[in-house]
Structure formats: structure tokens, C-alpha cells
């Protein structure tokens, strides 16, 4: 069995892209190019961990329609320093999420995207949708945060869209996605048309504000409170944005990536096992 993770990783990525020839064929070369570029730039085999400024992820190009790396993975075993004797400590691979898709998206995705675009054009808000990602049969609309209430209102009320049911908001913290560290992900169900879409909005860590959607989807009351509680995302316009799961006086926002898991070493039969976030692990 090959123990070369870099080849394995690249090969795997290629296999995936080959699988989804139907939808992402157009975006495939860009994704590969970026992977190779990230690897060659950071010097896979050099063994010296010294990234130059122009190689850091914030300097990677990320315009609409291009591949966007949200960080990089170093080494193979998640150990730094002398702990890793495998020789793969210098390995760097980019974390690349599925790239934006090109039309046609296929099936009812085009109906929804078309109806949404038509309505946005009618109101001069064509830039509200930053990108559309179709991956694994699910469609994601990346929406500009200032336009979120308008888009949500339209998704709910327009006859061709009619996404009546919001399944809540889920925060995701990407510490290396510079300028858009905090993502809020909404899942919307259209019971009328039997469709499920995802709407994703981002906010930077330095300005963690998003418009609240409670007035459009009242069910988001607790969900937004939970996302505030866990990620520190402030939903402007929420009627009472307080913590919901953690105690009121809790410091910090536990599900952010910079918040430690916590725990103490456990001793068992003379051995000491460190807490889960300090164990040697694979990344």
C-alpha cells in the first residue's frame, strides 16, 4: 500500500472530480490547478516550514467563480516538532471546498436559481448571490450578508420559490478563511414544491454581524440565539439575542475553533491519557 499521502490526496481529489463529470466539469481544471499550485508554492519536500508572505492563504486569489482554499493541512499525523518521525512533516495540502458551479445546474436547481435571479434583477440586486455551489446533489446559494433579509423574504414569499420552512441556522467557523471566518448556514424547505436548498452567509471575525431573519422565519429565534451562543455571531434585529444553551455569564463562544475543547488527563493503570484535543491524532 502506498504511504505517500500527497499522492493519495491529489489522486483522491482527481477521482472525485472525475466522478462528478455531470456538474462540475467546467470547474475541474481550476481546482486541480489550484491544488498543484498550492503544493508547488509551499515546497512539499523542502522540510523547512517557512511560508513566504505571498504563499499564505489570504493572498490566494479568490474571486467569484474561482477555487477558494480555506486553509491548509500540514504534515500527516497532526503532530508538530519532533513528535513526527514519519518524514511527512513538511507536507502541505490545501483545504479546498467544492468550487462554484456553472449553469445549468440540472433539474429543479435551475428553476430555483432562475426564479431567484429574475426577482433579483427586477430589484437591481443582481450581486446579492455571490456564487452557487452544486455538490453531491445539494445546491448552496452564497448570499451577500447585507442582502440576506431581502433574499430570504423572496425565497419565502415568491410563488415559484415558496420556501416556507426554515430548518434553522448552523454556524461554521473557518479560522483560515480570511475575511469570512464565520459562516451561517440556513436550510430551507419548500413544502409546496418539495425542494431543499441551502443558503450560506459569511461574516468576518472582526465584524461578526449578520442581519436577523426572525421576522421572516420566527423559528430562527432560538436557532440564532444558539449560533450567537456558540460562535459569537451577532444577529442584528433579533428581539432578544441572549445565550440559550450556555449559562448567561459564560465567557467565550465554545464552538469556535479557537476555543479549546478542555478536559484533563485521565490516569489508568499507570498510564496517563491526555484529553482528546491534545492527543496525537491525524488531521
Amino acid at each position: 500500500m502506498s504511504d505517500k499521502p500527497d499522492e493519495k490526496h491529489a489522486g483522491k481529489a482527481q477521482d472525485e472530480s472525475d466522478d462528478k463529470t455531470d456538474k462540475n466539469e467546467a470547474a475541474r481544471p481550476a481546482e486541480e490547478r489550484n491544488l498543484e499550485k498550492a503544493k508547488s508554492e509551499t515546497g512539499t519536500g523542502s522540510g523547512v516550514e517557512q511560508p513566504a508572505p505571498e504563499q499564505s492563504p489570504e493572498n490566494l486569489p479568490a474571486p467569484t467563480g474561482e477555487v477558494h482554499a480555506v486553509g491548509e493541512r500540514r504534515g500527516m499525523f497532526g503532530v508538530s516538532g519532533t513528535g513526527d518521525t514519519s518524514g511527512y512533516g513538511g507536507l502541505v495540502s490545501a483545504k479546498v471546498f467544492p468550487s462554484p458551479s456553472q449553469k445549468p445546474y440540472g433539474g429543479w436547481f435551475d428553476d430555483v436559481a432562475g426564479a431567484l435571479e429574475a426577482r433579483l434583477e427586477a430589484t437591481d440586486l443582481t450581486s446579492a448571490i455571490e456564487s452557487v455551489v452544486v455538490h453531491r446533489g445539494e445546491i448552496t446559494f452564497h448570499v451577500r450578508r447585507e442582502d440576506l433579509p431581502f433574499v430570504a423574504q423572496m425565497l419565502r414569499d415568491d410563488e415559484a420559490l415558496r420556501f416556507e420552512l426554515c430548518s434553522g441556522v448552523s454556524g461554521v467557523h473557518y479560522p483560515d478563511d480570511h475575511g469570512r471566518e464565520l459562516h451561517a448556514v440556513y436550510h430551507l424547505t419548500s413544502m409546496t414544491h418539495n425542494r431543499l436548498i441551502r443558503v450560506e452567509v459569511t461574516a468576518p471575525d472582526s465584524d461578526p454581524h449578520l442581519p436577523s431573519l426572525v421576522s421572516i422565519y420566527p423559528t430562527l429565534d432560538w436557532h440564532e440565539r444558539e449560533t450567537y451562543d456558540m460562535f459569537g455571531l451577532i444577529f442584528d434585529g433579533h428581539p432578544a439575542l441572549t445565550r440559550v444553551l450556555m449559562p448567561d455569564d459564560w465567557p467565550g463562544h465554545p464552538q469556535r475553533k479557537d476555543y479549546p475543547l478542555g478536559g484533563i488527563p485521565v490516569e489508568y493503570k499507570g498510564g496517563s491519557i491526555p484529553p482528546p484535543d491534545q492527543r496525537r491524532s491525524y488531521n
Partner: protein
Amino acid sequence: MTTEQDFYAAPGDTSQGKVFTVTGQDWDSITQSIGESAEERVVVNMGPQHPSTHGVLRLILELEGETVTEARCGIGYLHTGIEKNMEYRSWVQGTTFCTRMDYLSPFFNEATYALGVERLLDIEDDVPEKAQVMRVLLMELNRMSSHLVAIATGGMEIGALTVMTIGFRERELVLDLFELITGLRMNHAFIRPGGVAQDLPPGALDEIRDFIALMRKRLPEYAALCNANPIFKGRLEGVGHLDLAGCIALGLTGPVLRSTGYAWDLRKTQPYCGYEDYDFEVQTWDTADSYGRFRIRLNEMWESLKIVEQAADRLAGLEGAPVMVGDKKIAWPSQLAIGSDGMGNSLDHIRHIMGESMEALIHHFKLVTEGFRVPAGQAYVPIESPRGELGAHVVSDGGTRPFRAHFRDPSFTNLQATSVMSEGGMVADVIVAIASIDPVMGGVDR
């Protein structure tokens, strides 16, 4: 009433108006002063430790006499950080965490998580038929055990203790089946990405058939006890009313939504695990109240029984079929077996990896230590849990551990309706309204 310092109040707590406290007071003076101001509103804190609040749910009720003018929920007493913990374990280990969330419907937690991971791995079509049928079988048995607890505790809370005792009696039968099939009564971690952990043990199908036959006799008992019982109906009818618009605005799904007459069931509308191949009806009621939700749960148990029967028939024809995907880089390799020293890895498997196949040893080692990698992306596969739409938002950055796993738990969402369901009613009806939502605090707080 006292105007003195309240020793139990934190600095900054209420100091204006009347503060009722029993600290070092004479009860007579307390009751007297309350009597003087009976027309005033009283805020009552119900819970978090209260037998009728389904676990550690705190209710803050503002009362005017016996009438509730405002009702608010305090939750978070059972928050255990399961979502955060999952980020520090492998994809397969995540199953053991999420199964503990909604402890009355563990298989549903596992199933939605496993379906999300499978979608990201792009192996949805490779999961063997037997694994899917076993998932359906276990989920429907679980739906029955969950509804039984809902009816049992709901009955207990209004004083119908026989409903409680027979409810738990039947639930015990379901848990015995779980124990036979998975080895555990709760927290099974049985449905895993790629399939299920184990094949059916010998004799399981006979036990399931016996159970079905017994349930056909026992289920009518609930109907006979409750359906036309004037006290039962008097307590439930018209209580906790919430119409369709209210349900959708507040995101309520499951029996509460179906009690408005709207037949929304993800098993029919967005089938998963092969639900399109089973013959069953979506149960609705049109009263939009607690009684309707009770009848829906009762009827859904009959439907679940139908599905269990069909699944058992299909399993009879699938003897020896695989229960895990064929991909050796994903499928957990070891089958468990009972040896002289208890349950452990089967000796056949040990012989295979130690003596016969180097490849198998490598796969075993890699899967057990590192786990498998899941391609970057996100997935959300909602399923119909006993309480409504349960979905896992699974995000991977291409690593061996979940980058983020968020569970949209129906109990959490449905509990938001406490206020609208109970304000304006009597205190006693708050209990009935909440029982009709059937929240499980393990799922609410996660």
C-alpha cells in the same frame, strides 16, 4: 414579602417592587402578604427539576390566578457539547456521540448523521440493501418505543398511571429487541457510515415476528383506555392548539404539524433508506390539539408495525447478505463475536488479518487508528424522527474528523411553541401542551 435584603439574590437582581422570599421568614406573614396582593401577577419557576417537564426543562410562568399570561422556557441544563466533541473524534466515532443526543430515538440520530457522511463520501448508492432494510426496521421499532414513552409520560402527567405502566411495559419489549440486535438497550452506535455495525443475530427475525403478533394484541389496549375516555379527552381536547400557519412559522414538524391535517412526512416526501418501497400511510388529524397529537402517535405505531413487518419479510430473503459497503477503505472491518471471555473481535477476522492478508491488516490498522477521509464539502439529509425533522449538517474539510456537525433537533425547534401553546390557558394545561410536543431534553440541549 419583604423589603429587606434578599440574601439569595445576586447583586443586580430584582430590588424594585415586591420580592417574595422565605428566607428567615414566618410563613404566615408570607401568605398574608401574598393574599393582600392576589390580584398581582406572580412569576412561578417550574423546574428544572420537575417530574412533568420531561427532563431538565425550566419553565418560567407568569400567572394571574390559575391562568398563564406568559410562558418562557429555560433550556441548556443538559448541554454536553456533543457537537464540539465530535470535531475531535473520527467520523465513525462520531456515531457514538450523536446517538446519545435524543436518547429516546438514538437510531434516528445515528441514521441522519450516517446518511450525511455517506452523501459526502458519495457512497449513497453503494450501501447494501440489507443495511438499509435493517436501518428501516430499527428506526420503525424505535419510533414505536419513542411514541410509547411519549404516550406513557403524557398519561402519567395527567394522572393516567395505567397508561404509563403499560406504555413502559411495551417499550421494554422493544428495548429487548434492540438489545438482541445491537447488544444495547440505548446508545447503540449501530448505524454507521457505510451500513450497520453487525448482521442480525440468529433468531432475531422470530423474536421480531413474536413482537409484532404481541403488539397487535397490546396496541388496542391504548385505544380502549384513552380514545373515548371522558377524563382523558377532557384534559387533552382543545389544549395546546396550534394551527398550520403557526406550525410552519415556528418550524414545527412531526406529529404537531400533522395534527393540523397537513400530511408532511419526510419518509414520503423525500424518501431515504428506501422508504419508498414500503407500504404505509401518513397519519393526520384535523383538530390541531393535544388529543389529535395523541391519536396520531397511536396511529403511527400501527403504521410502524406495518413497516416492521415488511422489513422483517425482506430480511428473511436477505440472509447472509452484506451489511456494510464493499469499499475496504471505509467499511469497519471487524465483526464482533462472542467468545469465552465475552464479546470481542471475531477470531475469524483476527486469523484473516494476522495470518492471511497483509492488505486486510493494513486496512484494519488504518481504519482503527486514522479512520477514513471524507471529501471536503457539506451535506444535510433530514429524516423523519418521532418528533419531526431531524437533520445533521455535516461539514468536512477533507480530514479524518468532522469539521463541524450540527444537529437540527426537532425537540429544540418544537419547544419554541411552548409560549403560543400555553399562554392564556390554565397552569395544568401547560403540562399537557408540552407533553404533546414531546420534547426530549437530550436532543434539545445536545
